[in-house]
């Protein structure tokens, strides 16, 4: 069996070829561009936002180079069934966190790999509630999006098809949607208990729409329920960007540059970006480009825009509104856990096989925003993190609790937190290994956030009690997912980009990732990011056809 070289040692996408992610040691052809060749688009980041855009632009005939700071993994060779080994998928460069509720980064909220954090995401693929696109006018909180939900509904359908989402025939909440492309996965013990709890409470539940295939698709085999889903999928059942839009982008003629950290966007005298400075193979290089798209997620995107400040743009690029880096949002990710008499063995299968979105669609609440909750299946290292951080256990008391592992059950929320300009990304003075100033991430929960969390913890506890769980405890301090540091809007004074993800200030600068979200909704974000990226590709093609690029 061939052993491929270390993915961190040197770029794999080089010499006219890129790794074939579906075959050991194999390659696919890749078009390449010279640094001094002016490409149509330089896209910084290859995750849920970058990859669909790179593919869509290349298919539209544009010359495109996608940059990623992380390596180009070969899932069949590089992904071990092991929690610690898989930490190599995370963005572990230094970041400083502060505020009243500092964010946990690293394994949460970040990926450093071609495919971005979709390589290790838990595959939950949900649509926004339609009203969230107009949450200020329809629901009275947050900010309105410049997008129409009916148009998004169409892009969701296309994204679900592109990722072969496995889900139920009928989804219990919201407007009609087509049946999911692949059948729902069977429930594991943890999901069965979520369903029983919901039924006891008289609220609806459903198998979770997931981006892992329940039947063969192309070169992806069906999911084998190995359970290491918050890590790299070693069988390619998971429909990450690495095995979906990235191969599509290569076929369409895009170039991907792995181990390529973009440190600065260069501005020309005419007020347009002229390309990106990036570090690869130990030296700084410059790629000329007609357009620059930043798709680095809600920390790295504002970090790059701020770090690219010039005399003409002293506060960073695209920042005439002053909002770059502000309105950072995370999602509440609290949980309730308990012990069952039965064996649950929650390590089997995807961790979140069942969901209830009841409180995203029921507005009889005394706070703004919504939340869902899902079944849980933490592996041992994550489980000990929960036990120690939530209960302060150590010593023999910790060992005794850990032994109950196979009897544990849990419910975990994904909840909406409100935008607040005080929650933000700025540049710290200290520098990282590239010589770039590291991000400082400041976060404090607001009163509404706390009310929502309290409500959710109470509801989840009722559900666990209803199925007979004992020894119940709460994980009160956890958040996940990021958004909001380059929000979209229909007014240049109150947003960073317009509905097409185009900078109001610099016409050839774009942002295409979750930074553009004005609000965060009460569901996992990746499907919405991908839908927006697919829309942005269409919009750019339409603008180009009209000569408005």
């Amino acid at each position, binding site marked *: *069996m061939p052993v491929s070289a270390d993915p961190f040692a040197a770029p794999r996408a080089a010499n006219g070829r890129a790794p074939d992610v579906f075959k050991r040691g194999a390659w696919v052809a890749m078009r390449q561009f010279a640094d001094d060749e002016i490409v149509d688009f330089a896209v910084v980041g290859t995750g849920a936002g970058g990859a669909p855009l790179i593919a869509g632009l290349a298919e539209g005939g544009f010359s495109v180079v996608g940059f990623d700071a992380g390596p180009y993994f070969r899932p069949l*060779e*590089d*992904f*071990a*069934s*092991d*929690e*610690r080994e898989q*930490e190599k998928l*995370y*963005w*572990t*460069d*230094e*970041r*400083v*966190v*502060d505020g009243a509720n*500092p*964010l*946990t*980064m690293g*394994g949460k909220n970040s990926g450093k790999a071609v495919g971005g954090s979709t390589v290790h995401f838990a595959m939950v693929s949900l649509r926004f509630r339609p009203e969230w696109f107009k949450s200020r006018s329809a629901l009275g909180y947050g900010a309105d999006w410049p997008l129409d939900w009916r148009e998004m509904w169409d892009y969701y359908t296309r994204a679900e098809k592109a990722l072969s989402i496995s889900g139920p025939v009928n989804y219990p909440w919201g407007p009609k949607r087509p049946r999911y492309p692949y059948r729902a996965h069977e*429930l*594991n*013990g943890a999901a*069965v208990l979520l369903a029983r709890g919901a039924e006891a409470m008289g609220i609806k539940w459903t198998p979770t729409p997931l981006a892992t295939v329940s039947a063969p698709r192309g070169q992806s085999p069906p999911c*084998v*329920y*190995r*359970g290491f889903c918050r890590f790299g999928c*070693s069988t390619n059942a998971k429909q990450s960007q690495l095995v979906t839009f990235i191969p599509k982008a290569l076929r369409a003629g895009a170039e991907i540059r792995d181990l390529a950290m973009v440190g600065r966007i260069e501005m020309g005298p005419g007020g347009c970006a002229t390309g990106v400075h990036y570090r690869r193979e130990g030296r700084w290089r410059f790629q000329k480009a007609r357009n620059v798209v930043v798709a680095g997620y809600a920390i790295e995107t504002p970090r790059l825009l701020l770090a690219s400040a010039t005399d003409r743009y002293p506060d960073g690029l695209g920042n005439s509104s002053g909002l770059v880096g502000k309105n950072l949002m995370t999602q509440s990710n609290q949980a309730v856990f308990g012990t*069952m008499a*039965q*064996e*649950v*063995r929650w*390590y*089997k*299968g995807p961790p979140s096989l069942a969901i209830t979105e009841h409180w995203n669609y029921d507005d009889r609440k005394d706070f703004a925003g919504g939340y869902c909750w899902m079944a849980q299946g933490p*592996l*041992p*290292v994550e*489980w*000990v*993190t929960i036990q*120690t*951080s939530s209960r302060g256990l*150590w*010593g*023999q008391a*910790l*060992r005794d609790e*850990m*032994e109950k*592992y*196979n009897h544990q059950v849990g419910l975990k929320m994904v909840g909406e937190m409100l935008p607040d300009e005080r929650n933000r990304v700025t540049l710290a003075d200290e520098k990282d290994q590239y010589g770039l100033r590291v991000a*400082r*991430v400041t976060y404090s929960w607001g009163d509404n956030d706390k009310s929502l969390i309290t409500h959710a913890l109470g509801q989840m506890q009722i559900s666990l009690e209803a199925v007979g769980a004992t020894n119940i405890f709460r994980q009160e301090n956890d958040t996940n997912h990021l958004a909001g540091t380059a929000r979209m809007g229909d007014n240049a004074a109150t947003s960073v980009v317009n509905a097409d993800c185009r900078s109001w200030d610099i016409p050839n600068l774009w942002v295409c990732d979750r930074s553009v979200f004005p609000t965060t909704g009460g569901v996992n974000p990746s499907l919405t990011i991908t839908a927006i990226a697919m829309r942005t590709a269409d919009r750019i093609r339409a603008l180009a056809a009209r000569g408005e690029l």
Partner: protein
Amino acid sequence: MTERYPGYDVLAKRWTQSWNEQTRRTIDRRLAMPVEPRFFSPAEWQTLGAVCERIMPQPKERAPVPLPAFVDQKMADGLRDGYRYAQLPPQGEAWRRGLAALDRAAHEADGAPYHRLLPERQDDLLRCMQRGELTGEAWGGMPCEMFFEHRVIPDITHAYYAHPVAWDEIGFGGPASPRGYVRMGLDRRDPWEAVEAAADNGAAARRKNARVG
């Protein structure tokens, strides 16, 4: 102590369809962890060893998982978490300062280095650290409870529960690629999963666990 999963050995699955080549390489490296420090000084190493024994006590009947060595490896190789609380210095500096300050606290309280204290006294000082009650110049402004929560606890307990010995204790299936699992529902066990000892019959579980593979 009665074993919950008597005779279960996750390593027995090493050559089955539950382990692939990259997983075998990963676990082999973990099991071959050198026990000599590369990062910590001899004095720090002694204190760290005592702290590990209190945070994660291990049964006397088997060789201990070398927890100090895993902490040392993380520091020596600079394996970062990806974020740092503004009140804490970089991880290696935090450990050096925290261990020295704990040792100082032991001298001040009991007139002896931390690793020479009785286990109960060692626990007392760890509890003080957890509650934020240790102060003084040696901490250099680092809040001791944050050092405890964000360095001591995760660096030690993560190393332990990433080890196959710990998986045996809690009945975790361990590596599972390419085979995965088939029996998904409540109270269902695949033949390659650990058998829990019933209250009255550990021997039966032991017989079944010998066949797990």
